[in-house]
């Protein structure tokens, strides 16, 4: 590509950050406008990319490769495929909306928006890197602004939450570093992911460390790293706290984008590089998915803090993604080469990642809206708001119904595809997991009833209706939720070739040979 | 012979005053002996035919940096204190480490097969340095000037009291 579109995507926010650094702090309006322009341009670039992306081609497009640290064979290597493109779109969209969500921030505005843009760069970099080392660097770059955004602009327990988030994720990063180096040396000193995908399966065949299969050790290390991000039970406890304490826009980014990095990492790194590991672990993954679904839903049902409820619902929803990912083994000869199921599961997983990003972003923005007005989030402390805020309650209803997987809204289709994919292989697990649908509906409807229905709580007799700026942040998401619920093909068409490629890689695993 | 004697005298001055800088209990004494170290080093430059650098050394270090340091001492200590003393920490282990490093460095210097090229003694380096600065090293020179300016502003801003 002539104009290095991917580099623009990554570095535009940094340009914005530098511009912000030059603006005196007395002019918050200009700072906000610069941030909005930077992310807006990024969104525009990603949409251009979306249009120009060749949907039929296998492999990475718009590649950029520059030597970075030649002595270690490290490159500045970018590329985009059907898996990373939806994630990049999600990142750009949520970052752009996040700026408007945080319009009312009044504490250290300059620092906030500068960090927010840095975070944006980190996330975009993770999704577009094709060099493992670069991936790792962006992965870490993202942590720092997140730490400060939670730790400075968060709620009452912000410092505890920030440090917990930081340590949890750092722990994962350490394991990823080890796994990365192990792969680097096994693949003959390369960090190039496209190379590693080809070399790693052969290189790790039969290698053992202290009597353990190296492959399994690396897989577990990577898995824990990504599991913390997803988060998968039992590595999930940072999430409710961080979400609850973070400012609204940061919660949106956390739930909307950061969680996807866990599953993205699994699909980008673990699956293609360690197909044997993927197959070996698929059963456990399905069980963990089940636990995530049920556990998350039950915890959500128990919450009285609205934001915590939404946070646990994320755990629940990411469970569906994992379930879809576990379905990849259906493509193996052992399971009758059921490509239909494997494709349904894998595509469903990525679709669900995307859709969950939009839905959960809506949910967090909506929680922020009511919090700004009532200054608390206690579900039982509201009541009957539906009379006073008809538009707001309508949008919440849309988001809640999307969250509980109502057909016609985007939450349903991904979930259903994950179930369809996993069913032929993991019948019992899927049947138990469908209970999650019921629990989903219970906690959302129950919460909805307690907040909006029933008699009006007199305390909120003159609570103001949602305003134009807030609506502006919600409308694009709502449109996506409805459109993709009715017609998911635009996103599926982008990702399907890539997902089929990953399925084919995993399919070749010797563990899937017929008995 | 005289030159040799002068050389060793300068070396002695430099090393001893440098030692005094790091060992003295009195901060003012340290500063003053630092002056002698700088002058000694300027002398060593002269011995190496680096007249311009020697002059720069004297002007900037002695005239600039040292004055700054003494200002710093004055500003951060009540001047009425007769002895501006200061303690040291972890001297034992510090000395041990320093000596080990020195041993390592000396061994390295002695055992390394340096490629020595005896260039003819230059007659005045100023003109050459000037040309180099204006032609080959123009960009670094300009960057350095911007850096100086930035540091100046930054230092002034930092040292301002009360905000």
């Amino acid at each position, binding site marked *: 590509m002539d104009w290095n579109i991917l580099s623009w995507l990554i570095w535009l926010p940094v340009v914005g950050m530098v511009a912000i650094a030059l603006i005196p702090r007395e002019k918050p309006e200009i700072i906000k406008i610069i941030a909005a322009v930077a992310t807006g341009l990024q969104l525009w670039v990603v949409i251009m990319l979306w249009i120009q992306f060749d949907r039929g081609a296998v492999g990475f497009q718009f590649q950029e490769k520059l030597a970075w640290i030649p002595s270690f064979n490290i490159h500045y290597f970018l590329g985009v495929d059907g898996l990373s493109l939806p994630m990049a779109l999600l990142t750009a969209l949520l970052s752009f909306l996040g700026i408007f969500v945080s319009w009312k921030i009044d504490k250290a505005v300059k620092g906030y928006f500068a960090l927010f843009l840095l975070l944006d760069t980190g996330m975009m970099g993770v999704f577009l890197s094709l060099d493992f080392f670069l991936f790792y660097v962006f992965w870490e770059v993202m942590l720092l602004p997140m730490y400060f955004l939670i730790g400075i602009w968060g709620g009452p327990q912000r410092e*505890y939450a920030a440090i*917990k988030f930081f*340590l949890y994720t*750092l*722990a994962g990063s*350490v394991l990823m570093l080890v796994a990365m180096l192990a792969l680097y040396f096994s693949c003959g000193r390369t960090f190039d992911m496209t190379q590693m995908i080809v070399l790693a399966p052969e290189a790790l065949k039969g290698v053992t460390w202290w009597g353990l299969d190296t492959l399994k050790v690396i897989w577990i290390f990577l898995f824990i790293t990504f599991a913390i991000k997803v988060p998968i039970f*039992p590595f999930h*406890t940072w999430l*409710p706290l961080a979400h609850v304490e973070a400012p609204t826009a940061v919660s949106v980014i956390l739930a909307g984008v950061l969680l996807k990095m866990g599953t993205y990492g699994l699909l980008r790194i673990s699956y293609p590089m360690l197909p044997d590991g993927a197959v070996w672990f698929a059963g456990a993954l399905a069980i963990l998915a089940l636990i995530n679904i049920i*556990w998350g839903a*039950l*915890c959500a*049902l*128990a*919450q009285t803090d609205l934001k915590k409820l939404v946070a646990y619902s994320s755990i629940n929803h990411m469970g569906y993604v994992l379930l879809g990912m576990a379905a990849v083994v259906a493509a193996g000869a052992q399971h009758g080469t059921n*490509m*239909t*199921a494997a*494709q*349904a599961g894998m*595509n469903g997983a990525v679709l669900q990642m995307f859709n969950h990003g939009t839905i959960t972003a809506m949910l967090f923005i909506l929680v922020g809206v009511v919090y700004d007005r009532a200054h608390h989030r206690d579900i039982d402390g509201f009541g*009957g708001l539906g*009379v006073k805020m*008809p538009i707001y309650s*309508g949008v919440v209803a849309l988001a809640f119904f999307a969250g509980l997987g*109502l*057909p*016609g809204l985007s939450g*349903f289709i991904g979930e259903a595809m994950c*179930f*369809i994919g996993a*069913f*032929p292989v993991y019948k019992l697990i*899927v*049947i138990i997991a*469908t*209970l999650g*649908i*019921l629990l989903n*509906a*219970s906690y959302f*409807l129950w919460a909805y*009833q307690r907040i*909006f*229905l*029933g*008699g*009006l709580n007199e305390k909120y007799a003159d609570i103001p209706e949602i305003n134009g700026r807030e609506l502006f942040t919600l409308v694009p998401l709502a449109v996506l939720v409805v459109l993709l619920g009715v*017609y998911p*093909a635009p996103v*599926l*068409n982008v990702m*399907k*070739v890539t997902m*089929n490629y990953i399925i084919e890689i995993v399919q070749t695993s010797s563990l899937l040979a017929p008995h | 012979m005289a030159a040799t004697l002068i050389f060793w005298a300068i070396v002695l001055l430099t090393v001893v005053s440098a030692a005094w800088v790091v060992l003295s209990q009195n901060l003012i004494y340290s500063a003053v002996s630092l002056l002698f170290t700088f002058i000694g080093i300027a002398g060593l430059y002269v011995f190496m035919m680096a007249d311009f650098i020697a002059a720069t050394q004297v002007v900037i270090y002695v005239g600039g940096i040292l004055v700054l340091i003494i200002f710093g001492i004055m500003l951060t200590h009540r001047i009425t204190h007769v002895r501006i003393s200061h303690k040291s920490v*972890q001297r034992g282990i*510090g000395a041990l*480490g320093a000596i080990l*490093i020195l041993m*390592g460095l000396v061994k390295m210097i002695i055992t390394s097969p340096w490629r020595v090229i005896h260039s003819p003694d230059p007659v005045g380096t100023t003109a050459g340095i000037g040309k180099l600065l204006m032609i080959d090293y123009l960009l670094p020179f300009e960057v350095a000037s911007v850096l100086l300016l930035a540091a100046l502003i930054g230092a002034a801003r930092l040292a301002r009291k009360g905000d």
Partner: protein
Amino acid sequence: MDVRILYGSLFLILPLLAFVIQIFVGNRLPRKGDWVSIGAVLLTLCIAIAMFAVMLVYDDPHFKVDKSIEWFNLGSWTVEIGMLIDNITIVMLLVVAVVSGLVHIYSVGYMAGDPRYSRYFGYLSLFTFSMNGIVLSNNLFSIYMFWELVGLSSYLLIGFWFEKDSAADAGKKAFLVNRIGDIGMFIGILLFFTGTGSFLFTDLFEGVANGALSGSLLTIAGICIFLGAVGKSAQFPLHVWLPDAMEGPTPVSALIHAATMVAAGVYLIVRLFPIFTVDALTVIAYVGGFTALFSAIIAVTQNDIKRVLAYSTVSQLGYMVLAVGTGAYVAGLFHLVTHAAFKAGLFFCSGSVIHAMHHAYHKLNDHESDPQDLRNMGGFKDKMKITYTTMLIATLAISGVPFMSGFLSKDAILAGTLAFAQHHPEHSLLPVFGFGAAILTAFYMFRLIFMTFHGKPARREILDHIHESPSVMTTPLVILATLSIFIFYTLPFANPFSDHGWYMHLVEPVNSVVAGNPTAHEIEEGIHHAHLPAMIISLIVAGLGIFLAFLVYLRKRISAEKMAQRMGIMYKFSFNKFFMDEIYQKYLVNPSIIFSKAVGFLDWDLYDKYIINGFAWVTKRLSRIIGIKYDYDILDQKIVDGVGRSTHFFGAGLRLIQTGKLQNYLLWVLGGIIIIFIIQVM
């Protein structure tokens, strides 16, 4: 594009458009936009009538249009959705359009002045859209989607007056209970999809015929699909939501909870009839039969006019399910059609009565008395002549009295059941359920009529304020009552006992594709033979029921209280709906809430607090012990620098042991350099 498909899609587009308009700009339109929704539904009604007329003219029992388009394609997996239009579809579309149209018109009067008037019509349009979607779907996937969407509109409409806690509760309950059934249905869809690799009905039938799915797996899949119908059609044990759903506005009860949506379950199993195994059908028959009798028993003792009707709806739906289970699915669908007319009529009448009561109590400044309680009513027959007449006609129809539509369809069902029992004597319980429910139906329906329109009200003065409802409300009543007369269903014959009307002719039973099931012809033969005995028995039981009600509630020859006392425990069970709600609350809902609280506690207050933070605590403790025991300057530093990163990992508190002294760090850097030197030298 096939013009019929175009017409079919209008059934979806028009109401959807109306819904969108109502939600976004409804409030700003003149008359709050009710004409948008009404116009949309009346247009669909016109198309439905046209299609119906064309169907009658062409007179082709095998008429069928089935078109699919690709929804998305993943390479090996292509999902197609599309439309299926055949005679069943057309009949259903007409039913939906007629009832929905009348409900729209009726609502103009009933909902006048409501603050969320335009939203109400928006929701009605949404419902019409999704219901038409179910009817038009040619595949399980989109049927499931519309299935949930009708659930949504039902939720929204039940909880329409959400300021009332009971309404909000009822809406939630309806949605959740339906979801239980939907989960079953979803698993069923998964099973069918895994077996046949497609969602399309045609592929499904073909797959089952080719044995892609067979034996007990097919039975289980069928029962799972049926679970969806159990939820939606309020069959035992998921019937509990329907009576509560009466919290919604009465026209909604008529449309959704009597005539159309609840019948969707029946429609589903009718559509999928060919793939149910004998075992699955038996389960269906028993569930339906039991529900019919069970809820009829409950209906006898209820005092809320709408609740009586709700339980009667459950009971009638049980009939339809029973019919499908016994193989007489054509009869079941027939009953669905006739029931839609007379039950919607009954609800409209009750709405008219409640409207009048409301008005009267309002005039009397009485806000305590329940305007829906039968015991407060009585003697309205002279005040509300139209309502009385139409309600009487509908009641006669539901009781299965000759010359009424209900007689025809009920008779067909009972004949089917009887025939089934003759074939399989081990299932003789089924006709007992059927006839038992029939006698009770006649009894409680006439009890309702007598208590409402005869006798005396609890407060005599309210009679002065009872008025007939406005014509916008009574017109639909008259139309529906007219549609309850036999002639509309027996044409081209005018014989009220005929079982050969256009309907029986145009909707032909289809052979089951499951190997070993009886053929449609066999079933039809059986029904034909059982026709006469069934008719005679049903006449007797209907007469008996009406006579009993006459004795107890009009002539007061038998005291209702005494009878209740004599029945003792049976009465108590019936009056309390067999304590189903309490049982669910106590053994299902409460434990799940408690369980979720326990899990939440476990997750947050135990797991996170003690295990995760425990790591931090242990690390902190460990470091402190070592720090005290050993030389602070040396070992502590080592822990900070060497283990620092890994200790970081676990604990927020760990930063306390960082000295923060730069020179310490520098010293260690120095140490590192020395070590490198030494290594280099050696």
